């Protein structure tokens, strides 16, 4: 067992964990933040996408012990109250149906807009390559990300 200290959404979690425990299970089972989902075993679906020290990662491909002293943002930490502009854009443009892929999609979109505030459609499609959605056919997700980019440009906020 290893004792690790992880900050998730600004809150510190200190726990004894098995070295083999996946980070996604730490987040879901130990921190009880169930917005981060699991859709595969192989890093292909992106349902477990989180921000790890500011970088986009798949938490099913990371061990909890690797997150010792890391700063993590999950979907629950995106907005303290209400909705982050990207969440709001997904609501407005209906960028979700069952909602299972949605947390990962939104974190991916936030990360994209941070590095590329005005992405083209092709750039958005490419950025979403690691996140699968079986419900929407992606079009409304892309609409939502463009809309978020537009709105964030107008309000001058590119926040995470």
């Amino acid at each position, binding site marked *: 067992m290893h004792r690790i200290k992880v900050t998730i959404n600004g809150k510190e979690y200190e726990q004894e964990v*098995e070295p*083999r*425990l996946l980070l996604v299970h730490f987040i*879901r*089972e130990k921190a*009880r*933040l*169930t*917005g*981060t*989902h*699991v*859709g*595969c*075993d*192989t890093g*292909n*679906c992106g*349902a477990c996408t989180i921000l790890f020290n500011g970088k986009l990662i798949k938490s099913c491909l990371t061990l909890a012990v690797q997150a010792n002293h890391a700063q993590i943002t*999950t*979907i*629950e930490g*995106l*907005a303290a109250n209400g*909705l982050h502009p990207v*969440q709001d854009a*997904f*609501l*407005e443009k*209906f960028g*979700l*149906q*069952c*909602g*299972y*892929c*949605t*947390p990962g999609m*939104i974190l991916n979109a936030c990360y994209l807009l941070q590095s590329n505030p005005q992405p083209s*459609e*092709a750039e*958005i*499609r*490419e950025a*979403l*390559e690691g*996140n*699968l*959605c*079986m*419900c*929407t*056919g*992606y*079009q*409304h*997700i*892309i609409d939502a990300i463009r809309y978020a980019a537009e709105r964030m440009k107008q309000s001058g906020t590119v926040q995470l």
Partner: protein
Amino acid sequence: MPPAKYTGRKVLRKEDPRLLTGKGQFVDDMHLPNTAHMALLRSPHAHAIIRTLDASRARALDGVLEILTGPEIRDKLNMLPSAAALPDLRIPDHYVLAVNRVRYSGEPVAAVVAETPYIARDALDLIDVDYVPLPVVLDPEKALEKDSPVIYEEWKSNLAGTMQLVSGDIEAAFRKADRVVKGRLLNQRVIPVAMEPRAVQASYQPGEKMLTVWSTTQIPHTLRSEIARLLKIADNRIRVLALDVGGAFGSKLNVYPEEGLVPYLAMRLERPVKWVETRRENMLATIHGRDQINYVELALTNDGRILGLRVRVIVDVGAYLQMLTALIPTLTAIMSPGCYKMLAFSFEMKEVFTNKMATDAYRGAGRPEATFLVERAMDLAAAELKMDPAEIRRRNFIKPASFPYTTRTGLIYDSGNYDKALKKALDLAGYTQLRRKQAQLRKQGKIMGIGLATYVEICAMGPARAFAAGGGWESAAVRVEPSGKVTVLSGASPHGQGEETTFAQITADELSVPFDDVAVIHGDTQAVPHGIGTFGSRTTAVGGTAVYMSAQKVKKKMTELAAHLLEINPKNVVWRDGKIVAKTNPKKFTTFQEVVRAAYSAKNLPPGMEPGLDATSYFSPQNFTFPFGTHICVVEIDPETGEVAIVKYVAVDDCGRVINPMMVEGQVHGGIAQGIGQALYEEAVYNEDGQLLTGELMDYVVPKADQLPTYILDRTETPTTVNPLGVKGVGEAGTIGSTPAVVSAVVDALAPYGVRNLDMPLKPEKIWRILRAKTSHRGTGTQR
């Protein structure tokens, strides 16, 4: 139809704020104290005898609580259900855990329960099973040959069941034909891949003798009845919940071994038990879809009129019959004539056992196969007659004046205007210009193709008499609470479709209350009246109608009560801006809130009126609905790699009246994407030993954002009279229209290479080989 403040408009979804913030309640999100975790040992063999199974090493592992094997529990749990969909159907014994023999790779053999999921999986590795492998049966056509090994010795063959449907003089139609086109069409096995894998959790309160089960299901009430049957307990001691479910596409319209095992274990251990499927398990042992071989023959006149359609179908159903395995291909039978008039039709089907996972309902469920076979046949006919593919379809369409139209297969198409949708799609795509552009591009050596599919599908399942087991209706209750807020309880079980929103739209309009005042509850058998569930594009058409009927009943009662309070005849009151007003005197009115108070205080009710304000309805439609449309796809093929790029995609769908256009669009988008997936990428591949090679998302390719086009959508709106809302259903349309449209486009692109047909999926390699060979295969043969 209710007056439309909300209905027919884009209204943002009630579901979304929770889903957007990670506050959904999917089964695996539920943490009950003291939960134990189940894992399943699955057969590594596609066909084998289990000689011995020794779990002693696993039992000794610290943290292991229980291990079950097939022989130990065969008498404790009943077998999994299967609909007797064909008169001669052979239904195999289907235990929740294999007894002495396994018949597909991934079949559950033993269940382990442990303190953590990690320990449960460790224990699986410590179970020693001695298998004696048997010859495997994989090709459904070879499986019918005399010398094939058999999966069920008692039946001496691998034939599961047959169906024949002949209407009109088919022999005469082919005798009279000027031309006959033929094709062998393969509708390959695909895997539904809902993003949320399946999961089951159960807890048991021995005091109340109450079993609570959370499951990723589309059919909570059916599941409750089935758990009662499996476990031999009373249904009124079981509560099934399906809160948020992460997509299903038919794969959760079933009853699986885990839905018996987890509740059984929770009762046995008197502890909550949870099981969460891994993606690999999902690919191996949650139902697959399609898997038909269709031999089609179309008898035609020289001017392109269809005289007859003859279809011979071999269905690979896999090793066992899941709930609707045998039924799904019967939908192919009845929908094969598509949008077309014909003098005669014949359909002959054989369902065949193989050593694979069972097939069952996957988005479209039998109809994509029907549309694919008839649309591909129409393309072959157009090529044979050198006729434009749009024109040959137009010539054979059932005309608008012919509705309601009785088909060759005995269905009554409710309403339609196929030509209108076709024309709109052709205009939207700029079809004439596209053909001109194609001619130019071909001169430049570019490979571009235009594909077309027109479809009609069968939705709003459905009239009770259409199914052997009946059902087909839906329930809903509407209750105005003492506060004046409204609760809608639905027996349907949406899992992404968004009926919390559409049902609230319908109710808010009917009762003239704000949309935000309406809460919709579904997926809890303890809360809602007995219902059927969400599948077959039925939820709004059938479930929505039940909501509408209940809202109407409540409104009627409120009208009568208001009239009583105003001391006038109910005929003389109208609803206006939240008030219920005397027609003749606008100053004489009562309010919604006052009527609610009166209903609950019950001090001043008209004679014979009961207190309270709620109503329950069960809508049982008298027919199916038949949505239709045209999809047009334009592709360009990279001559170096054979890769297909969809450069334009146009869909015109007609799903009757629309409650929420934003959501209808979303349904069509998702459907098209899945249909493109089948056409271009997806295929469940088993090797010669019956091992699933595409057992992870690494190997099984579902389309990604950068592989899909922007869809250009439009609608025509031909209402139905099958239900008072005029709604037809839209959940599967996209999948049905898109697959043949995409294949049609690729074949069209490759026409200069002599290609008239290709088997899906149209992966780059297949196309690259054709381009490289550059040989002409003139004729109607299939490139395999």
